[in-house]
Every structure is written in structure tokens, then in C-alpha cells.
């Protein structure tokens, strides 16, 4: 063999399993919490119920899975081993208790010292993650659009958790010279658009090409998307810190929409050149997630024109959070889980039998039917939940949340089934 194989750089399976396990547990807890609280979701977003749900969704479900996936993806795609697997474990060991404590304080908004202390511990865990991955990435010889997106996303992650810790301290002992909600909006957008948005963009370009056997798509639109999202964040954060300055808000929104449009153009170019014609449920999730992304941009536009103190604005804020978090990011996370988990199980359990006997492919480790049922359940639930929030119909919200909880149980059941498969 003439060179070191990228697959040899992958970290231990147990590191990824630990992250995915924590994230799946977080998804179940979030789903149950959503069912229990769905009937009372209304009013301004700055309230314990919604802040607790949002942090449970992001820190409990989306973040551990995303960080676990990054630990698997970065070494393989960038052909460089993780800087320190021990540091990755240390960060995880700090992250889980810190986030658990932080979410319980958020849930009740008990502003005692444990709130800022747990937030700072969670931020420290994320700083360790980010430092480990950035130090991994800078050792790679590759300079690419995906690399630019991932490194920038990690920097935004550091900013987002730092702002989060600052906000938690400000709740405990007010010291910031600016409005809490203004900084909270900046924190949310740096995390959502800066970290998750750019990360998903960068990773999608590479994974879609790899899994769809797509070659030769020009990257111009992807670079435009990268620039536009960075510009959007700059304008939006400046707007939030200047009491929602309308000009800066409009510029931020325009740049954000341009960035999303350019991203979708890039994805379209990759899809157009694909050799894999059959799109399984994972790809259906990923395709639908782009619809949620467009809906997020549309809701963002409406938020600028709707009067700030109106009931419509309060509901739109919740819709905005739902389409962005469990909608766009949650859907893409589930879609990626259906790709990554079967592949990892195949790699560690089935691969040793390649060439010795007939074994299933990664995609064949789980039948399509349960995945399709889960797909229907999840997006039906999202639809009901969104309508229930938009028209303030508690029954619709409970029905939607229940469907999403069933869907979460189906995801965990399906992945558990895959983990249990043996050759």
C-alpha cells in the first residue's frame, strides 16, 4: 500500500458511541418534555419553559450528536488524526454533567450560583472540544471550502458558548451594559447560523459528494454562501446590539437569505451531478431539512415586519425556533444518523467478513419501512406543532409533540436494532 489510509485516522468507536448515546438520550428527554409542556407553549420566548426546551434541544440532543459526528468525520475527511483523543474524552466527561445541571437550572430559571457555574463548565467543555478539533484541522494539508466552513463554525461555537456563559453570569449578577435579550439574540444566532449553519453547509458539501457519487460540481456558490453567512451574522449581531437597528437588520436578513440561496444552489449542483439515483430515507430527511431552512429564512423576514410587541411576533419567534432547531438542524441530524450509525456498525462488525462471505451493505442493516414510518411521524408531528403554535391551538401542539416523541422513540429503536446486528 502506497499511502496511509484516511480510515486509519478515525478515533475509537467508543468515543463516537458515547456522544451518540448521550445525544439520543437527550432527544428522548426533549421529546417527552415537549409533549408535557406543549399545551402551555405561548407568550414571549424569554421564559423558563421555552429557554429550558431550547437548551434541552440544542445542548442535550443536537450538540452531542454533532460533536460526535465531527470527531468521526474530521479525521477521515481531512486525513489527519484527532489531536488528542484523551482531551476529547475529558471534554465529554465535563460536558455531560455540566449541561445536565445547566439545563435543570434553565428549566426552572432558578438564578442561583449553580446556573452560571454550570454554564461556565459547559462552555469550558465546548472550548476544549473546539480547541482539540481546530488543532486537528490546522495539521491537515487540505485547504478547502469544507475546511473553511468547519473551522469558522468552531470559532462561532466558542463565541456562542462564551456569550451563553456571560448571559448566565449576567442573570446571577447583572453587570452587562446592554439589554439581556439583545445579547441573547446574538448568542442564539451565532450558535444557530454561525455554528450549526456553517458546519452543516461545509459537511454537506463533502458528504453529499461522497455518498451520492457526485463529482465535478463547481464550488463558487458554496464560497458565496460562506461569505454571505458570515456577513449576515456580522450585520445581525450588530443590529441586536444596537437595539434592533432596522437598516442593519435588513442587511443581515438580506445577506442571510443570499447565503441560504447560494447554499441551496451549491447543493443543487451536487445533486445534479450525482450518480446514485436512489434516494433513501436519510436523503429524504436531508432534502426536507433544506425546506425547513428556507422556512426559517421566511419566518426571519416576517419577524422583521411584524410589530415587536404583538402576539403574532411572540408566536413567530416560537415558530422560528422550531423550524430552525428541531426542524432544520434536528432533521439533518436524524438523516445523518441513518447514514453514519449503520456505516460505523458495518465497519466494526461486518467489515472483517468482506471477501469471506456475503454480508449486507450498511444501508441494508435496517429495513426501509421503519425508517419511512419514522420519517412520516416526525414531519407530520412538526407540521402539527407548527400549526398549533401559529394559531395557538393547544391540542394540535400536543398531537404534534406526541408524534415527534413517537418518531424519536422510533429513531432510537431503529439505531438500537442496528447496533444489535451481528454478521
Amino acid at each position, binding site marked *: *500500500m*502506497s*499511502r496511509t*489510509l*484516511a*480510515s*486509519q485516522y*478515525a478515533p475509537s468507536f467508543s468515543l463516537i458511541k458515547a456522544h451518540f448515546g448521550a445525544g439520543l438520550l437527550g432527544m428522548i428527554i426533549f421529546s417527552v418534555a415537549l409533549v408535557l409542556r406543549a399545551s402551555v407553549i405561548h407568550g414571549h420566548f424569554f421564559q423558563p419553559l421555552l429557554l429550558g426546551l431550547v437548551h434541552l434541544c440544542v445542548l442535550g440532543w443536537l450538540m452531542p450528536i454533532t460533536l460526535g459526528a465531527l470527531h468521526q468525520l474530521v479525521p*477521515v*475527511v*481531512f*486525513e489527519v488524526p484527532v489531536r488528542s483523543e484523551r482531551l476529547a474524552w475529558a471534554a465529554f466527561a465535563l460536558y455531560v454533567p455540566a449541561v445536565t445541571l445547566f439545563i435543570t437550572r434553565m428549566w426552572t430559571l432558578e438564578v442561583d450560583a449553580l446556573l452560571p457555574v454550570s454554564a461556565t463548565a459547559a462552555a469550558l467543555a465546548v472550548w476544549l472540544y473546539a480547541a482539540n478539533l481546530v488543532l486537528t484541522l490546522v495539521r491537515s494539508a487540505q485547504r478547502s471550502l469544507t475546511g473553511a466552513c468547519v473551522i469558522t463554525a468552531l470559532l462561532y461555537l466558542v463565541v456562542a458558548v462564551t456569550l451563553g456563559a456571560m448571559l448566565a453570569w449576567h442573570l446571577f449578577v447583572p453587570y452587562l451594559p446592554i439589554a439581556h435579550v439583545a445579547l441573547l439574540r446574538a448568542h442564539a444566532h451565532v450558535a444557530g447560523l454561525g455554528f450549526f449553519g456553517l458546519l452543516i453547509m461545509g459537511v454537506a458539501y*463533502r458528504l453529499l*459528494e*461522497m*455518498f451520492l*457519487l457526485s*463529482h*465535478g460540481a463547481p464550488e463558487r456558490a458554496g464560497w458565496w454562501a460562506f461569505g454571505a453567512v458570515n456577513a449576515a451574522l456580522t450585520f445581525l449581531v450588530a443590529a441586536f446590539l444596537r437595539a434592533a437597528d432596522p437598516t442593519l437588520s435588513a442587511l443581515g436578513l438580506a445577506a442571510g437569505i443570499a447565503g441560504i440561496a447560494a447554499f441551496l444552489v451549491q447543493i443543487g449542483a451536487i445533486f445534479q*451531478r450525482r*450518480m*446514485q*439515483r*436512489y434516494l433513501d430515507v436519510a436523503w429524504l430527511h436531508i432534502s426536507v431539512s433544506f425546506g425547513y431552512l428556507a422556512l426559517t429564512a421566511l419566518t426571519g423576514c416576517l419577524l422583521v415586519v411584524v410589530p415587536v410587541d404583538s402576539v403574532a411576533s411572540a408566536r413567530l419567534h416560537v415558530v422560528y425556533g422550531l423550524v430552525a432547531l428541531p426542524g432544520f438542524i434536528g432533521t439533518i441530524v436524524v438523516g445523518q444518523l441513518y447514514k453514519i450509525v449503520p*456505516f460505523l456498525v*458495518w*465497519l466494526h462488525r*461486518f*467489515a*472483517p467478513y*468482506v*471477501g*469471506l462471505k*456475503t*454480508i*449486507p*451493505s*450498511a*444501508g*441494508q442493516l435496517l429495513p426501509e419501512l421503519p425508517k419511512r414510518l419514522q420519517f412520516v411521524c416526525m414531519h407530520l408531528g412538526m407540521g402539527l406543532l407548527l400549526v398549533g403554535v401559529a394559531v395557538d391551538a393547544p391540542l394540535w401542539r400536543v398531537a404534534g409533540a406526541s408524534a415527534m416523541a413517537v418518531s424519536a422513540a422510533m429513531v432510537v429503536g431503529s439505531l438500537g436494532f442496528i447496533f444489535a446486528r451481528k454478521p
Partner: protein
Amino acid sequence: MTKENVEAAARAALEDVLDPETGISIAHLGLVYAVRYDVETRFLCVVMTFTTPACPAGEMILEGVQRRLGRVDGVAFVDVDLVFEPRWTPARITAEGRAELGWPPSPAASP
């Protein structure tokens, strides 16, 4: 065992080694560039590539190729030479591979 027979058997054997993501054999994906057999030494050399240098299943595919080719009659030694020049492109996918990916046979591949 002639050189041609063993090389044909080796090519057929490589159809058993599947890409884990697509479920299509590496032969049909066009990943195998050359198969050379030396009758005297019973040495079989395969030159192959991946769809991308960052193939996450690369190591396992190479080991699978070694194992499968080791079971071909007449083969005593196997060497798998992994190359990335020339780069793999979708144009290398065979007619069988295209059909498995859901594409109609290309006009050039039609009888």
C-alpha cells in the same frame, strides 16, 4: 492455470467485494484499474483506487480485497496497490454499476 484464467477469476472474485455505502461491487464501480498475475511466482497484483482519497471504508475494502483474492485458485500471494492517479471519476462505473445505481444503460454500453 493460465495467466488469463487466473486474472479472469480474480476479476470475477472482485465482484464479491462491495462498497458498504452503495452496496455495489468495487469492480462495477470501476475502482479496479488493473489485475496482473505472474504464473511463475503465483503472485497476483491488483491496482485499484477509491472514489475519494478520504474513503471512510478504505482500510476495510483493501483487507476484503486481500482476503477474497487469497481464495482464488492458483494465487499464492496478493499485493494491492492503491493509487490515486488517475483519479476515479463516475465515467469509470461499468454498465452493470450504472444499472445498479438506477441509470439506464448508456448508448455506448448498449450491444
